[in-house]
C-alpha cells in the first residue's frame, strides 16, 4: 500500500470540507449571493467590504466582540492560574477535584446558555434575587449594554476556567523541580517562587491559552445567540458579536456574500491578533534571555 493511500481519506475530506470552504469564502465575499438562490452569483468587487465599513452595526459588533472578549478572557485565565496553583498542592480527592473543575467544559454552549439565561432573568432570575437580598438591583441583564455583556461573558468564564486550569496545571507539573529547589535554597518565599519560577516556566502555556482564548472570543456565537434567542444580539445590538452578525447577515437577511465578507474580516482579525500575541511573547522571551 502506498503511503499516499494512508493520507488519502483525510486529505480528501480535508480538501472538500476544510480547505475549500476557507478559500472559497474569500471568493464568495466578492459577490452578491442570496441564500435563496445560492447558484446565482453577481460580481460585486469590494462592495461587500465597503458596505461593511460604513455599517454601524458592523462596528458595534466589532466593539462588542472586543469588550466581551476582554471581560471573558482576562478573569478566566487569571482565575484558572490561581486554581491551577491550588490544584498543584498535594490534595486529597485530587481526581475528583480535577474532574469537577472540568465539568462545565462537558456541557454544550446551548445547554449552558439556556440555564444561565434563566438564572439571569430580570424579574424571576435567581441572580437578581440574590442581588436583591443584599440590596442591589434588579439589574436588567438583557437590556443594559454593560450588564448584558457581563452576563454573556459569565457563561464563557464558567465553561472554560476549569479547562484552562488543567492546562496550566499540566504546565506547572512539567517545570523542572530543580528550579524550585534552587529558589528554596536562595531563601525565596512561596510567593516569590510563584512569580519567579512558576510564571516564567508557564510562559509558553500562557501564550498558548491566550491565543486559543483569543480565537474563541473572536468567533463567539452560541452564547449571545441563545441568551435571548435574538439574532441581533439584543434590541440595540448591545451584545451582538461578529460571529452573530455574520449569522444574521447570512441566515437572517440571507446575504451570503456579505456574511462571507464578515467571515474574512474575522479571519484577518484572528491572524493579526495571533501574530501580535506571538510577537509579544517572542520579544519578552528575548528580553528575558538578554537579562
Amino acid at each position, binding site marked *: 500500500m502506498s503511503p499516499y493511500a494512508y493520507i488519502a481519506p483525510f486529505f480528501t475530506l480535508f480538501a472538500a470540507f476544510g480547505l475549500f470552504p476557507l478559500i472559497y469564502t474569500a471568493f464568495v465575499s466578492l459577490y452578491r449571493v442570496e441564500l435563496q438562490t*445560492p447558484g446565482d452569483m453577481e460580481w460585486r468587487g469590494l462592495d461587500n467590504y465597503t458596505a461593511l465599513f460604513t455599517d454601524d452595526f458592523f462596528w458595534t459588533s466589532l466593539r462588542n466582540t472586543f469588550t466581551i472578549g476582554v471581560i471573558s478572557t482576562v478573569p478566566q485565565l487569571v482565575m484558572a492560574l490561581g*486554581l491551577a496553583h491550588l490544584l498543584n*498542592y498535594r490534595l486529597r480527592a485530587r481526581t475528583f477535584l480535577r474532574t469537577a473543575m*472540568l465539568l462545565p467544559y462537558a456541557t454544550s454552549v446551548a445547554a449552558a446558555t439556556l440555564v444561565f439565561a434563566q438564572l439571569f432573568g430580570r424579574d424571576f432570575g435567581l441572580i437578581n434575587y440574590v442581588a436583591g437580598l443584599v440590596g442591589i438591583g434588579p439589574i436588567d441583564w438583557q437590556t443594559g449594554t454593560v450588564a448584558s455583556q457581563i452576563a454573556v461573558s459569565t457563561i464563557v468564564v464558567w465553561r472554560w476556567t476549569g479547562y484552562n486550569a488543567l492546562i496550566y496545571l499540566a504546565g506547572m507539573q512539567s517545570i523542572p*523541580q530543580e528550579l524550585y*529547589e534552587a529558589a528554596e535554597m536562595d531563601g525565596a518565599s512561596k510567593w516569590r517562587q510563584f512569580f519567579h519560577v512558576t510564571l516564567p516556566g508557564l510562559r509558553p502555556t500562557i501564550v498558548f491559552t491566550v491565543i486559543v482564548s483569543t480565537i474563541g472570543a473572536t468567533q463567539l456565537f452560541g452564547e449571545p445567540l441563545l441568551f435571548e*434567542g435574538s439574532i441581533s444580539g439584543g434590541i440595540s445590538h448591545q451584545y451582538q458579536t461578529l*460571529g452573530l452578525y455574520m449569522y444574521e447577515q447570512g441566515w437572517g437577511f440571507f446575504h451570503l456574500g456579505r456574511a462571507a465578507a464578515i467571515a474574512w474580516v474575522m479571519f484577518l482579525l484572528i491572524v493579526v491578533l495571533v501574530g501580535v500575541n506571538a510577537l509579544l511573547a517572542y520579544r519578552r522571551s528575548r528580553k528575558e534571555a538578554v537579562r
Partner: protein
Amino acid sequence: MTTLADPPVTPPARPEKPPHRRARRSRAGRTNHAGKLTYAILTVAVLVSAFPFYWTIVAASRSNADLARVPPSLLPGPNLLRNFEAVLEEADIGKALLNSFIVSGSITLGTVLCCTLAGFAFAKLRFRGRGALLAITVGTMMIPPQLGVIPLFMLIAELQWVNQLQAVILPGLVSAFGVFFMRQYLVQSLPDELIEAARVDGASTARIFWSIVVPVARPGMSVLGLLTFMAAWNDFFWPIVALSSSEPTVQVALRQLGGGYVHDQSVIMAGTLLGTLPVLLVFGLLGRQIVGGIMQGAVKG
C-alpha cells in the same frame, strides 16, 4: 468542531510514565500539603462549577409557576417526569438524542480512523510532499471552521443535503488536530525497529498498520475518540445552519427550545437536562481519562 474544544496543539507527552512522575512528586518542595484555605477555595470553585447543573435539576423538576415565584425554590420538586414527558412530546428530544448519537458516533469512528492512518503515514513513512502536506495540516489547525460555513452551506445546498445528517457528519470528520495528535503520539511511542522487524519478516504495510501500529496507537486513539465525541456532541454553529427542527441534533433541539418553541421554562430546563445527560454520563465513566487526555495534550509548550 470548535477550535476551543480541541486541546492544545503542543506535542503530547509519552503517555506512560507514572513511576517517574510519582518519584518527582514525592521529593517536591512545591507539592506541599494543602492548607485549609486551599480546600476552602477549591470547594467554592467546585460548587460554582456544579451549581448550574443542580439548578437545571431543580428547575426541570418544578413548574413554570414555581419558577416565577419570589423567593425561588431551591430544592427539586415533583414534576421531573411530567416535564420530561412534555419535552419529549413537544420538542422531539428523543429523535434529537438518537440523531446526536448517530452523528457523534460516526464522527468519532471516522475521525479516529482517518487520523490514525494519516498520523501513521506522517510519523513513520517517507514520501514526497510529506513536509509540505504536514505543514498545511498544522497551519490550518488554528483556523476556526466556523469561518468556512458559507461555502460549506452553498456546497450542501447544491448537493441538496440540507437537513440530512451526512451534512453534519462529513464536515465533522475533518480534524487537522487529530492528524497532528496521532502523528506526535506515534512518533514517540512506536519504535522504528518494530516496523523494520515486521518488514524483514515480509509483512505488507497494510498488515503492519493493523497488527503493529493500531495496537500501539490504541491509548492515543481512545483519547482522541473521547475528545472528538464530546466536541461533536456539543458542536453548535454548523448543525443549526445545516439541520432544522424536523431532523435535529440535541443542540439544534435546544436552540429551538430557547427560541420560544415551548413556553414553559421548567420544560425547557427538562430538555436541557436530557440533552446534557449523555455527555455527563461519558464524563462520569471516563472523567479521569478525559482529564488525563487534556493535560497530556498540554504538557510542554
